[in-house]
């Protein structure tokens, strides 16, 4: 008899229940709220229920969004006596449907580490930088701290604005990021602003823009529930996107013959349940993807109607080298990396022809038969296929190219923007999409996908920001991207750096250089401002530390990986003198812009006067009203009809800004989040789950977008109305080797990444005892044979050295990942390990995103 999986559980549970001693089991309420006692229930139980009910008196509930990963799980926040006491999954949030992960459940504790920063601090002696937590910092008043920060910013701005920089984050809420970008770009006329999303999503962004001319995925999380085949490319979802991985596994268990192929350089928790693991050599994914595409064409297995109706073909600059040197971007090849030319389908096929299954096997180490099997999955018209990828693809010296290669496969087979059939770039942070990408905190962007380099985009932004025409021409050239920013800091070319919502002193690659451990002293000389909630390694290098309100200590908004914008309501007050980041920004902007004008208007009032009273040093309304006011201005970018001047530019320049249409602020609260574009239909605002896919809007399809700008009855029922000529680009990208490869001196590949329990650099999650006990230290996962050869055993300390730097870490052969011979993995959350001292800062030449996954290292017993 073959038992189904679920039947097995049922059978065994009944058997075990029968065998158990009765009345000896403790009650359990751990994962659900206390329920009222039923009539006739045990009196003791009734008393317990009453006690539980009493405990709930005084509890307030607010709607929130988890502030950790890019899943963007909705949560219900319960507070009592001014403290958050519970965080549960929000069943009404369409992204997670009530699910949560271990980090999300512990959000409340993350707020209450005893060393929360509650007072501004100033460093008087720069020589004390990096000398220990709190060393050299003294308490200050807000006025003293803000005056100092603004005076240094203004001094730098007036002297040479190329020497100032702001480094933001995909954890910055939307209206805060919007105002930050507005201050930097329209107030200071500087593009030296970039988010830490550069480190995780930039390759995906450039891929989207190159292929579709619009950022972010066409599909949504519901694709997981509808597909027949999952292909994970460089994605350890079980650790980095746990809620979504639970949905993947549920789909596999609920569906019939649902398959999972995991393309990876190591066995992870995500590999554990995969039907097939394609264990590849680092950096060989482009060869595999090209071989899949070639197989589909050679064997006539691609979708000819889809190709004819929708696609154009291109090739670009090749043999582009690697960004080792500071001057790479301005080198001859560096300046041509974005160049592409149109080619025919036949020429595209010719370029792919060398990528036989055997050639791909030679490069990747993956058996040709396995690559063929993967290709045939894409060829099978009876199956839907969903590709999911994240940092293994994006943090790659050819990250943008690999994004292209995944789209190439999906577009050739007509598998894009259709329910269950899609290519989905998973986001790393809770608002990498909503803030970093959508409001334009990148050095080359303006809000809503607009680019500083495009004149119509600047005119459009000027119209909405009520700036004189031509005012933004001063920022037509992009500023410093993140790696450039820190390289120039270490070169002594940055005088003022302000960072918020990140911990660059742990998360940046090549920290040996950026922390000034060599002969560079830029980090000491520069005036560094850090807005933070806890002491971090970054605050050890700060001249001023600004204590910030954390998560639901103020109202905010995140935009997650499936284009869902959601609001987290304020639930409690911040501790001590910690303040809302937006207030800090307003006060610094007010001081910095004092006496400045835009046209005839006071500069600060022109930019922020609608919601901030500079004389009162406070917002004109409460946090809800303030957020709503800022949102209403921001959403004008995607609702041009709200601004006649913008509407005219939108029509004349064919910007199609409605493709990202956002709803009024309160709709997001009432609906527990909405996925854009959001369309107003008969007085209701309806979300879009599948962009570019024709069908009823009320079912989540892009009915009104296609009616306005697209075409119906095309192959696949889709219309890529935002793409140039309404045709996405299939771009041939060759396999080119990693920036550096193992050598006799550095014989191992080092890969870094995240693990389930700790968010990024652990500055919050390591203050949660349960998570800290589960994952108290970083281990270096190694292959047992490598350990044996090096005389290492589990628990030994090893020294890891690259040509960039060195650190020590404990060895494990039984860690979260199983490493092939010659490869090691180290998570980056642990400040005491600081693996980023070792990691290279070489970046994808197109996206400028660093490659954290392939640093050659030497390993010795410490």
């Amino acid at each position, binding site marked *: 008899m073959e038992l*189904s999986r679920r039947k097995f559980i049922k059978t065994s549970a009944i058997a075990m*229940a029968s065998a158990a001693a009765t009345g000896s089991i403790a009650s359990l309420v*751990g994962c659900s709220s206390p329920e009222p006692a039923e009539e006739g229930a045990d009196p003791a139980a009734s008393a317990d229920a009453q006690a539980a009910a009493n405990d709930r008196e005084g509890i307030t509930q607010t709607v929130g969004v988890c502030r950790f990963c890019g899943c963007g799980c909705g949560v219900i926040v319960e507070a009592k006596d001014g403290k*958050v006491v519970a965080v549960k999954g929000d069943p009404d949030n369409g992204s997670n449907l009530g699910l*949560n992960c271990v980090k999300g459940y512990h959000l409340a504790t993350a707020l209450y580490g005893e060393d929360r920063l509650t007072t501004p601090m100033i460093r008087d002696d720069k020589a004390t930088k990096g000398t220990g937590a709190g060393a050299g910092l003294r308490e200050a008043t807000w006025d003293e701290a803000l005056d100092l920060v603004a005076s240094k910013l203004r001094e730098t701005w007036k002297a040479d604005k190329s020497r100032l920089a702001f480094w933001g984050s995909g954890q910055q809420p939307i209206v805060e990021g919007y105002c930050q970008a507005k201050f930097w770009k329209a107030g200071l006329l500087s593009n030296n602003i970039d988010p830490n999303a550069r480190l995780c999503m930039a390759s995906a962004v450039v891929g989207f823009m190159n292929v579709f001319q619009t950022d972010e995925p066409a599909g949504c999380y519901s694709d997981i529930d509808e597909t027949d085949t999952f292909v994970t490319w460089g994605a350890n979802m079980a650790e980095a996107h746990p809620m979504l991985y639970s949905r993947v596994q*549920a789909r596999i268990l609920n569906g019939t013959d649902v398959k999972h192929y995991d393309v990876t350089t190591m066995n992870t928790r995500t590999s554990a349940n995969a039907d097939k693991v394609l264990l590849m050599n680092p950096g060989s994914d482009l060869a595999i993807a090209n071989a899949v595409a070639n197989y589909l064409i050679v064997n006539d297995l691609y979708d000819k109607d889809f190709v004819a109706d929708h696609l154009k073909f291109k090739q670009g600059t090749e043999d582009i080298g690697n960004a080792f040197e500071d001057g790479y971007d301005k080198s001859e090849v560096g300046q041509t990396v974005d160049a592409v030319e149109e080619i025919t389908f036949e020429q595209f096929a010719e370029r792919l022809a060398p990528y036989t299954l055997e050639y791909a096997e030679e490069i990747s180490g993956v058996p040709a038969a396995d690559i063929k099997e993967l290709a045939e999955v894409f060829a099978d018209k009876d199956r839907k296929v969903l590709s999911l990828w994240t940092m293994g693809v994006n943090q790659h010296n050819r990250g943008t190219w690999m994004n292209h290669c995944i789209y190439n496969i999906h577009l050739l087979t007509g598998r894009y923007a259709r329910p269950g059939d899609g290519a989905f770039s998973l986001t790393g942070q809770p608002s990498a999409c909503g803030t970093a990408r959508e409001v334009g905190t990148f050095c080359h962007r303006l809000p809503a996908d607009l680019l500083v380099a495009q004149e119509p985009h600047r005119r459009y932004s000027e119209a909405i920001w009520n700036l004189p025409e031509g005012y933004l021409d001063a920022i037509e050239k992009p500023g410093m991207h993140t790696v450039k920013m820190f390289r120039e800091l270490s070169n002594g070319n940055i005088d003022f750096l302000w960072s918020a919502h990140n911990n660059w002193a742990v998360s940046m690659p090549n920290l040996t250089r950026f922390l000034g451990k060599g002969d560079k002293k830029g980090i000491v000389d520069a005036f560094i401002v850090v807005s933070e909630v806890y002491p971090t390694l970054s605050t050890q290098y700060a001249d001023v530390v600004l204590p910030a309100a954390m998560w639901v200590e103020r109202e905010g908004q995140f935009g997650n990986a499936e284009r869902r914008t959601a609001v987290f309501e304020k639930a409690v007050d911040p501790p001590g003198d910690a303040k809302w980041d937006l207030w800090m920004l307003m006060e610094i902007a007010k001081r910095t812009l004092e006496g400045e004008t835009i046209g005839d208007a006071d500069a600060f009032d022109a930019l922020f006067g609608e919601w901030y009273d500079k004389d009162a040093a406070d917002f004109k309304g409460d946090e809800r009203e303030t957020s709503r006011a800022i949102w209403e201005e921001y959403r004008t970018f995607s609702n041009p009809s709200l601004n006649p001047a913008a509407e005219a530019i939108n029509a004349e320049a064919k910007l199609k800004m409605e493709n990202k249409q956002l709803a009024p602020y309160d709709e997001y609260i009432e609906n527990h989040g909405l996925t854009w574009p959001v369309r107003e239909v008969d007085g209701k605002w309806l979300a879009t789950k599948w962009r570019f896919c024709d069908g009823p809007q009320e079912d989540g399809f892009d009915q009104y977008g296609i009616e306005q700008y697209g075409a119906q009855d095309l192959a696949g029922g889709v219309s890529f109305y935002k793409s140039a000529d309404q045709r996405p680009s299939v771009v041939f990208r060759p396999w080119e080797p990693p920036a550096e490869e193992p050598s006799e001196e550095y014989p191992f590949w080092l890969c870094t990444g995240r693990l389930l329990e700790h968010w990024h650099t652990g500055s919050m999650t390591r203050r949660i*005892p*349960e998570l800290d006990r589960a994952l108290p230290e970083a281990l270096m996962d190694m292959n047992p044979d490598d350990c044996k050869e090096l005389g290492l055993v589990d628990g030994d300390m090893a020294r890891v050295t690259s040509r960039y730097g060195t650190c020590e870490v404990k060895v494990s052969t039984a860690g979260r990942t199983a490493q092939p011979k010659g490869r090691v993995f180290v998570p980056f959350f642990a400040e005491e390990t600081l693996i980023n001292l070792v990691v290279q800062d070489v970046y994808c030449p197109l996206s400028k995103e660093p490659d954290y996954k392939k640093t050659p290292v030497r390993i010795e017993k410490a």
Partner: protein
Amino acid sequence: MKMKKLPLAAAAIALAMSVGTMAACAPTVVASTEDAGGQSAATAGVEAPASELDGIPSNTPADHQGRFESMGGEGCATCHGTTDGKTTAGGGAMLPEDHYVDGSYTTGEIDPVRLQCNTCHAQES
């Protein structure tokens, strides 16, 4: 490794008979300074939230290392599952009702989306 059915079912049941109480899903007591053994300096002295209403899934005890990896959620359910909301077979803490198909113990079937136990129940090291 994908979960195989009957052979592992037998193993899981055998294991279920041999284990004691498991803390997973039990009411959470947010760790105080005293009981947060093994924590790093960063967590020492963390103040607990004001009540224990937080419903946080408990960590999986250290002596359960490897069980989920070898048996999957089905293995966990053999000890922690119930069909009547009153008893579990292995003496383990009982899975809450919202972990079951249709939100009911009576189905005796764990909702597949809840079978990645280690997503919410961190494994103590």
